[in-house]
């Protein structure tokens, strides 16, 4: 079944794909001012999720202002010309809805979940705060305390999070991904009104945003509302190109130990600089995704088979690859040693197992089983259209296109064992790696 949209070509820059029976019901188009729109239909319940994603995250921040993207995210819940501070969320709540926002390296996103017949109100308010926030000095001071407490809660109270910051800072020699999303404390403490407004005026514009609406909506109706509320906001002609300082060739293996009295369970983490999914060129990323699954994606994965079941050296092993990223990402390995096994022994066993995996080649049965699960995941995903919407939001703010998102499942299915081994040989290079030991600080008594 094809649900074609009757739209005038002048209004719509692209209408690439419409739902097929049994597949995700996704419609996409672009407004005249450059704002992209993704609609995912699910008519089982009269609920809608309305999101606006900005192609602006912590890696787009100016030097010295780490944390400003996230700080601004908090400040968008203060006032505009027409909304008093706090009135945005209060209005969502008064309509029986929930709202929140989140910030990452490559994006900042705002969302509301609410009854489908309240979509227009959500759009009116979200469009308003795209250009019209009004902040007081008191807002700045109080909310800065809030983000510092957020940093306390997420990071400073957690040795694992502090260790992760050090790992990233060591991995990236020149790229902004080495700076934490929430910011370094000493820079967060200096964030002011000017920092926040400067980031806002530079990045918050329709031609830098993606509207994602999921749930009980018709694409035509979404389009009409989007034109009414977002379509009238002028594009920012000064919108800067997203140019970040890139990584030079990495030529020295790095090691670090992070000691903290609050660590009770030490572990070893290894990260390798790795290519991300690029538009029109996702094959290597697909191979790395499957490599992570085969090495450490489940209890049947290679590292767990060898290290947990056979050698009983670890209580847990995992491998991770975050393919959706604007710039170079990482491929990560993690092993938690069993009692009586040292971090060095665990690390050596991990390295030996990875080397053996590469030598032996991919077990085709294992690969087929993972591919079967990925096909099934597409069915399960239709139970959560908000999740599908998030997938588009992340991809479109990370340099990918709608076509790339839709091609990804087939690209994964086409990956061969040889391609996975080739990707492993290319990416798992010691020179581009960081090895970290999270350790007890035995000198401090508890």
């Amino acid at each position, binding site marked *: 079944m094809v649900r074609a949209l009757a739209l005038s070509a002048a209004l719509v820059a692209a209408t690439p794909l419409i739902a097929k029976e049994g597949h995700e019901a996704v419609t996409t188009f672009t407004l005249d001012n450059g704002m992209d729109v993704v609609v995912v239909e699910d008519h089982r319940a009269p609920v809608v999720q309305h999101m606006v994603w900005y192609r602006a995250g912590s890696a787009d921040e100016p030097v010295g202002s780490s944390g400003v993207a996230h700080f601004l995210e908090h400040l968008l819940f203060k006032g505009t010309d027409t909304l008093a501070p706090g009135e945005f969320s209060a209005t969502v709540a008064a309509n*029986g*809805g929930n709202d929140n926002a989140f910030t990452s390296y490559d994006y900042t996103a705002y969302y509301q979940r609410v009854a489908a017949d309240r979509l227009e109100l959500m759009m009116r308010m979200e469009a308003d705060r795209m250009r019209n926030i009004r902040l007081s000095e008191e807002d700045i001071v109080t909310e800065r305390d*809030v983000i510092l407490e957020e940093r*306390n809660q997420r990071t400073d109270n957690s040795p694992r999070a502090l260790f992760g910051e050090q790992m990233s800072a060591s991995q990236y020699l020149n790229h902004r991904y080495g700076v934490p999303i929430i910011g370094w404390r000493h820079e967060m403490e200096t964030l002011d009104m000017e920092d926040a407004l400067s980031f806002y005026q530079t990045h918050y514009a329709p031609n830098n945003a993606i509207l994602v609406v999921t749930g009980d909506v018709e694409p035509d109706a979404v389009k009409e509302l989007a034109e009414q509320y977002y379509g009238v906001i002028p594009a920012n002609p000064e919108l800067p190109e997203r140019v970040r300082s890139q990584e030079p060739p990495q030529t020295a293996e790095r090691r670090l130990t992070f000691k903290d009295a609050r660590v009770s369970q030490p572990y070893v983490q290894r990260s390798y600089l790795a290519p991300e999914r690029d538009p029109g060129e996702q094959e290597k990323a697909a191979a790395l995704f499957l490599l992570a699954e085969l090495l450490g994606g489940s209890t049947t994965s290679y590292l767990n088979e060898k290290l947990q079941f056979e050698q009983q050296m670890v209580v847990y092993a995992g491998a991770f690859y975050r393919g959706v990223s604007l710039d170079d990402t990482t491929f990560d390995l993690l092993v938690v040693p069993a009692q009586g096994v040292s971090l060095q022994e665990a690390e050596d066993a991990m390295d030996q197992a990875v080397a053996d995996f590469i030598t032996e080649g991919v077990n085709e049965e294992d690969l087929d089983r993972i591919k079967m699960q990925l096909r099934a995941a597409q069915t399960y995903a239709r139970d959560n259209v908000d999740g599908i919407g998030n997938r588009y939001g992340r991809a479109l703010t990370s340099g990918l296109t709608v076509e790339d998102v839709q091609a990804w499942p087939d690209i994964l299915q086409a990956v061969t064992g040889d391609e996975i081994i080739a990707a492993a040989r290319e990416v798992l290079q010691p020179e581009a790696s960081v090895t970290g030991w999270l350790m007890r600080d035995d000198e401090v008594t508890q």
Partner: protein
Amino acid sequence: MKRIFATLIAFVIALPAWAEIEIEEVTSPGGITAWLVEDHSIPFTALELRFRGGTSLDEPGKRGATYLMSGLIEEGAGDMDARTYARELESLAASFSYNASDDSVSISTQFLTENRDEVIDLLRTTIHEPRFDEDAVERVKAQILSGLRSDQTDPNDIASRNFAQMAYGDHPYGTEGKGTIESVSALTRDDVVTAYDNVFAKDRLYVGAVGDITPEELGALLDKLLADLPETGKPIPDRADVTIPGGVSVVEFDTPQSVTLFGHAGIDRHDPDFFAAFVMNHILGGGGFESRLMQEVREKRGLTYGVATYLVPKDLASVYLGSVSSGNDRIAETVEVIRNEWARAASEGVTQKELDDAKTYLTGAYPLRFDGNGQIAGIMVGMQMDDLPIDYITTRNDKVNAVTLEDVNRVASELLDPEGLHFTVVGKPEGLETTN
């Protein structure tokens, strides 16, 4: 087609402007009862099985046995060892997950329609023929012990353990269901088998199913899966007394932010005042940015990233609990603000506008919960365990709307006890000391 089992009740639940969720009570030929929402739009089913009792059924001195058992269910069954079993489950692309809480052990599953029979065969073997191999027992014990070691120096876990111990004393609720390093280290395969026998029985079973399955198919599935379970399991323990005294207890821990739990005795799910308390909690600390505590502690003073309160009506005791974290130099002020708000709500109550706003939110947001097959299956099982009627979803918003300002303010003055409020503070708080 003749139904060989009785379909007792079917309700079409029409919330104003909201989804119609048709819950049907299905009783299998073998006498197993389940609530079903039939929806054929996506070719999979979510099936939730829950057994009342949970980790509170642990035998004396065997703390952690039920939790360990729930982790071992998926580590081999029938003629399959752990690794063979895991491969088999993966190849079917189904998911089975297990959770052991204070009051229940749950098995949450989802499976495709195309291989449902094979999945149910595997699930039957899983439930009826778990192997509990010695090597698997040791391996999973080591994983749990690793987690317990981490918990020992996690301020959130330290706070939970201390608060529970003070609130519930020697009752099973007073210690963690995961057990302690000492108790788990001593557990044997026999303890695991005992825990299995204690938990899995028909007298405590609740079932919810949502998705691409008919009542006839579900009835047959239930019998295959569950009819052969024993009739009875271990008796549920007695109720717990909530004994926590008012005041402050500080657990010294070298970390920059003090993690704090606060609370006192709460209100039971079946108390006639439960809905009034539910609405009152939303206004005080239960809801998003609009609650009084979020406004006072975060929005006005920037003392925290988040503060929230929860009514926690468990099967065997009820507490009213809150959590907050502030820097060590600011937590004393946070505690003072919270205690003042507690006292203000108890003595002055809430305003009509606050009550109206809370009702609008709570009634409007209720349908947002029903978003996904697994979610709905879980909600239906929760309703059954709380002994709610099958038409509860249609009447729930009426119960919220029926709460009057007088009800809320009376319940606020009865339930909120600023003197009895206990704060467990984990950190190096400045200006706070243990009071008792």
